């Protein structure tokens, strides 16, 4: 949790997004079913899960763009269903596959939303210029958006959030359909937002990306949050342990030696002189020390960081197939 100085209504320790028992029903089918959520200021929070698991609906409820069937929610201390304008003034939203008016230029598109935000002319021009610069779109500012690539459109969407000076940036599938380089650039820009103390909420199914930039993640399944926390915590919870260290070394009684390292839960001998250790923390220094202690020669020492993908796969694997079908 960051300790950014802030002049806004909510003190840092109070969650900027708070939900209890949040539910959205279509007919008798609950798309979002009793979600509890607390997101702290300055956090990068990831919403993960298969399509149709309720991520976008949760985001739309947060912005007052769809009704809340039951439960309570507050965003920056406001009720999005009753005070949507106050919420929407402070929250920036980049929808899934964002669209712009193709016949207008990048600047004109931002000018339109800037006017809707109620920015005065001079302020608007200044903010647009700054936002386009930060999004790396200065050169194409006066080109029509029709000529823009997918990545440029996403960046223009982010420029809109920058222009808004949003306290919370809500990004729905921001990197889907981007090429690797555009994805890198985009993730870098999200990092910049975080550095400014902006709370970022993003939904995605690009697990490795989410893992790289998110402080905490929540796993959605059929309208429920089934897992929530930092990735290493989840790894311990789902995979049993967080770190898998492989050692390739010669040495007498090395396997026993490795098993004695505190935090190691299991040592598996893969072949002669190759061991796989499962541990709660990164035990590479201890493993190296153990090899030196038995006077062995260390050939390779590698660690598999707990991957979100492994957690995700394992979690959905363990569930009965019926649940997964319902979610899809």
């Amino acid at each position, binding site marked *: 949790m960051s300790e950014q100085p802030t002049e806004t209504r909510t003190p840092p320790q109070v969650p900027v997004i708070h939900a209890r028992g949040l539910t959205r029903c279509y007919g008798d089918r609950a798309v979002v079913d009793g979600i509890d959520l607390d997101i702290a200021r300055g956090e990068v929070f990831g919403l993960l899960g298969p399509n149709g698991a309720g991520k976008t609906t949760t985001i739309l409820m947060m912005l007052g763009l769809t009704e809340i069937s039951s439960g309570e929610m507050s965003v920056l201390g406001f009720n999005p269903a009753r005070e949507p304008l106050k919420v929407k003034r402070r929250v920036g*939203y980049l*929808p899934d596959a964002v669209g712009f008016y193709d016949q207008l230029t990048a600047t004109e598109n931002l000018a339109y*939303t800037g*006017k*809707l*935000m109620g920015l005065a002319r001079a302020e608007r021009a200044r903010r647009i210029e700054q936002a386009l610069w930060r999004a790396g779109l200065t050169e194409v500012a006066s080109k029509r958006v029709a000529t823009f690539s997918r990545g440029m459109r996403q960046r223009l969407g982010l420029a*809109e959030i920058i222009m808004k000076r949003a306290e919370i940036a809500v990004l729905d599938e921001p990197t889907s359909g981007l090429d690797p380089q555009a994805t890198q650039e985009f993730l870098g820009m999200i990092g910049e937002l975080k550095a400014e103390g902006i709370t970022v909420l993003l939904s995605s199914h690009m697990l490795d990306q989410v893992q790289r930039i998110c402080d905490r993640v929540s796993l959605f399944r059929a309208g429920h949050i089934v897992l929530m926390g930092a990735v290493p915590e989840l790894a311990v919870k789902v995979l049993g342990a967080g770190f898998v260290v492989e050692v390739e070394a010669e040495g007498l009684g090395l396997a026993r030696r490795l098993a004695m390292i505190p935090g190691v839960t299991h040592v598996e001998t893969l072949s002669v002189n190759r061991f796989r250790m499962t541990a709660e923390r990164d035990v590479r220094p201890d493993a190296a020390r153990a090899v030196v202690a038995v006077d062995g020669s260390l050939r390779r020492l590698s660690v598999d960081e707990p991957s979100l993908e492994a957690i995700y796969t394992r979690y959905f694997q363990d569930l009965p197939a019926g649940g997964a079908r319902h979610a899809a």
Partner: protein
Amino acid sequence: MRREGSPFQGMSTVFVKELADHISSVRMLMLQLLIVFTALAALYEAINSLRQNTAEDPFLLLRLFTIDQAPLPSFVAILGFLIPLMAIGLGFDAVNGEHNRRTLSRILAQPIYRDALLMGKFLAALATIGISLAALWLLVIGLGLIFLGVPPGSEEVARSLVFLVVAIFYAGVWLSLAMLLSTVFRSAATAALVSLGIWLFLTILWPMLAPALAQVVAPPDPRYALLGLNDPATTVWAQELLRLSPNDLFEEAMLAVLSPTTRSLGPVFLDQLRGAVIGAPLPFGESVMLAWPQTVGLIAGTIILFVFSYVLFQRQEVRA
């Protein structure tokens, strides 16, 4: 509990943006060219015919609007046919266009209510039509001045201004309808086809169907037929059914306002005309009173259809 803030916040921004879009769009240019050329043809014929038989007519200017010279219909009849096309052209993709461009959720994530978006779009399209109709109106007056050389009297100008106002509400009905369909159908092509279908049905088929339906609802008494007369009951039914079409309402209102000699829009008995000087024009106020029910019908149609699309749009999911 009331929601906070004004529903009209941001409406003027939407209005200005949509107006600029409409006026600079190729679509609008095509519609305007279509209307201007057809209207000019009708006017040319009207001017020609007026020049050839310059009878004593205190309302020479108004004759420009209403005279029809075969094979062309009158200027007003052409507008009655083409205004719906223009309104549909501007409204059929108002809401689903935003959906399909995926701009809707981004715009609605700004601090405005949906009311502002829908209302702004409606008013912008109506203003666009208003501007082109006003230009057309000026064109008629100008051509009248040039070719007929008779300055328009104040009553003529007043009557033609009423024409302008009624025409804008007539456009409003079709615009509301097109926007309603653009809210109902996610595909712009479907919305356009359905609105055009309704337009063709109401302007071409309905005038043929209404009398037939009236015959079914109120079969004419054979005694009237023997006398070679129409059964008043059947005639009234036919007229009431016809009035379900905004096209008919527009034409009746225009008849009352632009042909000052019109005394009644429905069937009248001869004894009701006793003492009337046939062919003498009605005062301006009386003509407006005659057209008032039709005008109210058009205004009500506009509002009702708009309310439907408003309610639908408020309840619609924004996600694509």
